């Protein structure tokens, strides 16, 4: 058996692989099978809408061209596109999206991540990440204003001297005050991260954004 073709093919090849798949993959699937997976439309909330409207006010012309009116439907579309770009541009190879219960991470970033937070379409596949060149982003929403993000994506070193983060001028039509569709989508996505939590550290203290209205 240990040196025969069928032993190696069926036991080592298929059997052990399936065993591990059952143990490590199917167990969590069964544990979480009753959870509802939210769609991009369902994860749109008050806070990200407020940010979306903020973008529309700050960059009226660009926004109009990109998404028209700041409706919830347009916001869901921006989230989808934003996440597609976040993956395609490789942001997730420099930024993680989970806060661990150790190493003071909850003091730096915010509440420790919970499993339920990832049950949505925008975590398919989940963007836990394996490397942090830059900080974790799962609680990034509200931490900075949209203008900050615009300048930062255009040229990170302007607002963060010595930043090794690459620049993304193709998110803009020439200058940081003219974000294009891609730019607005990525900013919406970033502002959405963590917007589902109790606390949302919106820097301008607007009640509307903090969800208290």
């Amino acid at each position, binding site marked *: 058996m*240990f*040196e*025969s*073709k069928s032993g*190696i*093919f069926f036991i*080592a090849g298929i059997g*052990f*692989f399936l*065993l*591990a*798949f059952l*143990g*490590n*993959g199917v167990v*969590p*699937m069964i544990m*979480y099978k009753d959870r509802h*997976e939210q*769609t*991009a439309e369902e994860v749109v909330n008050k806070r990200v809408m407020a940010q979306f409207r903020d973008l529309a006010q700050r960059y009226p012309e660009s926004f109009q061209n990109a998404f028209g009116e700041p409706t919830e439907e347009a916001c869901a*579309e921006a989230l*989808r596109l934003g996440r*597609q770009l976040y*993956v*395609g541009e*490789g*942001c997730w*190879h*420099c930024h993680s999206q*989970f806060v*661990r*219960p150790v*190493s*003071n991470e909850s*003091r*730096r970033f915010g509440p420790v991540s919970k*499993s339920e*937070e*990832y049950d*949505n*379409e925008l*975590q*398919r*596949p*989940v*963007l*836990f990440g*394996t*490397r*942090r*060149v*830059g*900080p974790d982003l799962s609680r990034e929403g509200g931490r900075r204003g949209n203008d900050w993000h615009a300048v930062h994506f255009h040229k990170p070193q302007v607002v963060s001297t*010595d*930043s*090794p983060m*690459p*620049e993304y001028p193709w998110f803009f039509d020439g200058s940081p005050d003219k974000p294009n*569709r891609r730019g607005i989508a990525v900013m919406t996505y970033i502002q959405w991260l963590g917007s589902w939590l109790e606390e949302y550290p919106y820097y301008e203290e607007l009640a509307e954004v903090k969800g208290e209205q």
Partner: protein
Amino acid sequence: MTSGPSAHHRSDGFQAGDAGAPAHDDLVDEKIIVCYYVAALTFLTISMLAGLLVALQLVHWNPFRGTELLSPGRWRMIHTNAIAYGFLANAFLGTLHWAVPRLTFHKVLSTRLSWFIFGVWQVIVLSTAVGIVLGPTFQDQPWILALAKKWHLPMNLGAQGLEWGETPFWIDPLALVGLALVAVNFMVPIGKSKGPMYVSLWYFMAAFVWTFLTYAMGNLLPEYAVAGTSAGAIGGLFIHDLVGLFVTPLGWGLMYYFVPIMLKKPIWSHGLSLVGFWGLAFFYPLQGIHHFLYTPIPMFLQYGAVISTIAVELVVATVVINFFGTLVGRGKEFFENLPIRYFYTGMVFYFITCFQCALQVTLTFQKLIHFTDWVVGHAHLVMFGVFSLWLFGIMTYLFPRLLGRPWWSRSLCEYHYWLSAGGLFVMFLDLTLAGIFQGYYWSSLQPWDASTNGSQPFWITRVFAGLAMFAGLLCFLVNLWMTARGAEATDPLPARAAGTPAA
């Protein structure tokens, strides 16, 4: 052909090997091996350039700043994908076309099929690269967003969000067909062979099954079937299995094949070979979740992954012991025989990797080193220090046989070895140390800049270590070019040093 391979044909594999065995030229299609190697080295060059680009970005020396198609984020994914699918897969496939027919005394199922697979595979790798580079540029199309909305799927034209599973979704089906054909093409000669199977074939056979299953699991489930934490568990399994069930078994299988030929003696202990194979097969797939410790994945699963990781380190130690047991009495070869030197250097690095892994998988270490450059150092140590060095050793051995002449320059061969192994070792030490610093910067709650600024000396060192590795590759390429051209050699590599066993 030179008399090289047929002269020691009998010693291959230590199984059948009677006088009636078919001749080498009837078994092996040498042209396809050369083509696979050329493709592999091309993608290795691309991958290293991509690695250098990312490394330069981190130290603020990126000369192409703000160029969309050279964005470091995209090229980081080219870096890892070109290595896995462009370099390692091509180099392994080429070598299998040598090893499998010679071990089984049967040709691959079909030479035409082999060439078809070769073509398909290059299309897969190239379109993956094109997809990753151009995908985000063209992502914003109404029809894609409409499909994404309708099906609630990611629908990324470019990279998908799983490390090493970035292969765009529209290539995945082709890649699966390719992998299935590879399995059939090689499994048929293995199936036809008589008598007990040699160790290498255990590994190859299992690897064909595992690679296909792993690829299917990782590229289909987390994208289409499950989201969130369960997808994370599958993602962990995938990254892990790709290294452990595709690269590792093929690599060890080839070591079990080439080392005894070159040392002219059988593997030290058959029992240890059995322990090594079955231990790997059982424990390796169970560890995927160790890539995501302290995530919301259920804690008991994380503990399970940690324990099986520590178990596999013990198994791995038996394999390394077995190979060093084989070297005993032939220690001179380590110094005189270049492929053997590559192989055993790789094994030393393998042992370091596994020792390191047993530490870093513990939750205590994880607190500090997860997310840091420690892990990147570990990845380079295993991917370059072990498997790439092995493949370099194999190529150093096979090219003179495939091209029918000795290596053009002995010193370029030596430079290739020393720059690769030396550069890698510096990179590994450097990144490991960088990781420890980064871990402490973060947990001491200093501003983020402290960690990126504090990493600069390490990142600068990494650029130079990478340049050394790249220079090593250039030496190899120049040497190969001159050898293939048939340039007159003033200082060729003697057959002895290229792996031909002493009489």
